[in-house]
């Protein structure tokens, strides 16, 4: 007795097999359909973003080049030279040398400040752990992503460069965009 698979069997609907005059006729029709498809691409117009002139806006949480911050009211640096960012960095690209603040020479709000703060952007993997590790929100990931340069040494960003405003701001997406 043969096995009866019951209603589980799905009837397969096959298209007509190619070949013969009918096949040639169908191929002609399909060619016309294809021509219509490609022409509708022309009507749609290009979707290219002409990069150097047009830029894609980044999202607010985009992790671009780092920035160091100052307090807006006092102008003192937020960074206290604790080196937690350097410890958190998986690529080991942050170098912090701390120094004591004195009453005559007060740079940051805390006890110490970062005398040297360098990020080697040719090693940075833009993971954002430094931002997470920072107890004072002194370092954040900015929105800059155009950082190519001709020399590796130019990619070692110093504290002054990180504190400064970026020369050209990356466009930011509007709310809900």
């Amino acid at each position: 007795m043969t096995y009866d698979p019951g209603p589980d069997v799905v009837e397969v609907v096959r298209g007509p097999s190619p070949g013969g005059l009918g096949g040639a006729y169908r191929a002609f029709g399909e060619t016309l359909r294809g021509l219509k498809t490609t022409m509708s691409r022309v009507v749609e117009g290009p979707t290219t973003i002409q990069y150097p002139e047009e830029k894609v806006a980044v999202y607010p949480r985009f992790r671009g080049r780092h920035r160091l911050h100052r307090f807006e009211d006092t102008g003192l640096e937020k960074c206290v030279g604790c080196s937690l960012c350097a410890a958190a960095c998986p690529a080991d690209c942050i170098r912090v040398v701390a120094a004591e603040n004195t009453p005559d020479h007060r740079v940051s709000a805390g006890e110490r400040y970062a005398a040297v703060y360098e990020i080697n952007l040719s090693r940075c993997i833009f993971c954002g752990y430094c931002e997470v590790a920072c107890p004072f929100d002194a370092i954040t990931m900015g929105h800059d992503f155009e950082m190519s340069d001709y020399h590796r040494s130019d990619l070692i960003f110093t504290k002054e460069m990180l504190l400064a405003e970026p020369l050209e701001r990356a466009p930011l997406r509007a709310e809900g965009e």
Partner: protein
Amino acid sequence: MTTVYAEVGFYEPVWIQILKALVIFAVGLQIVPIVLLAERKLLGRFQNRYGPNRVGPFGAMQPLADIGKLLWKEEFRPRTSIQFLFVLAPIISIITATATLAAVPFGNVVDIFGEPVGLYGVDLNIGILYVFAFGAIAFYGIVLGGWASGSKYSFLGAMRGAAQLISYEVAGGLAVVGVVMMAGTLSLTEIVEAQAADGLWFVIPQFVGFLVFLTAGFAETNRAPFDLPEADAELVGGYNTEYGGGGFATYFMAEYLNIVVISAITATLFLGGWLLPFGIDPPTWVDPLVVIAKIGALSFFFIWIRATLPRLRYDQLMSFGWKILLPLATINTLVTAILVVVW
């Protein structure tokens, strides 16, 4: 003493013939970079992108940049190649393409400086045969180029080119027979005249012939979907794999000139040459512009097809040529013959 190069109703002075040759050569070759640019721009549009738009306004200088780059490159020749044939092959390609241009009629006889001048290179009484003869010789350019390169890819491309020629030249030739029977002449000018007399372009009564001829034209110009002699995906570059610099530029130019020529021949045979539809009879100076507009429209169609259809497999190419196109062309010829006799 006049030398009769071709049987025409009159013999133009030599200086007019030379002038005509120069003008047709100049105009014909000016269409090539335009088609080249149009192809790249349109292929872009067909794929939702812009195409070249960096060199010059709207990328208009792109063909110049392409050709300039190629001409500045070193002429490289593989050690296994045969120098004489390797150099000769692209030259054959470009010469045959240019020679076919001579038979394309851009208009009827007009008066220039008091001399009756035909707006064509030559009005041969065997016009179509001339076109087909040079179309066949053009394949020597491909076959010799591929063979003389001494490389496997080139050789494969050349062999495919030869096989493709045999398959499609037959069907294309048979498709034209219908037009020849309806017009009662082989001369391209008189074929256009016949379409004017009937007031009906041959594309309507000879629609099947038109389709077959156009398909054969795609095969003859090695354009997608019949670009098997080149087949960049499988054969690197096919017959032109080993060519670089000037040789490649020549092949490149011959390919686009072939598109222009096949478009022009199709326009002449089926689309009424310099005629305008609906009985519009413009002054004679419009005629060449009408022909050029029709060439442009057909070239656009060539590019459109290239953007749409994938390359045929080799056996599909063969079976399509022999099993579908050839019977269609034969039936078309038979039916036309019967109708021409009965009418």
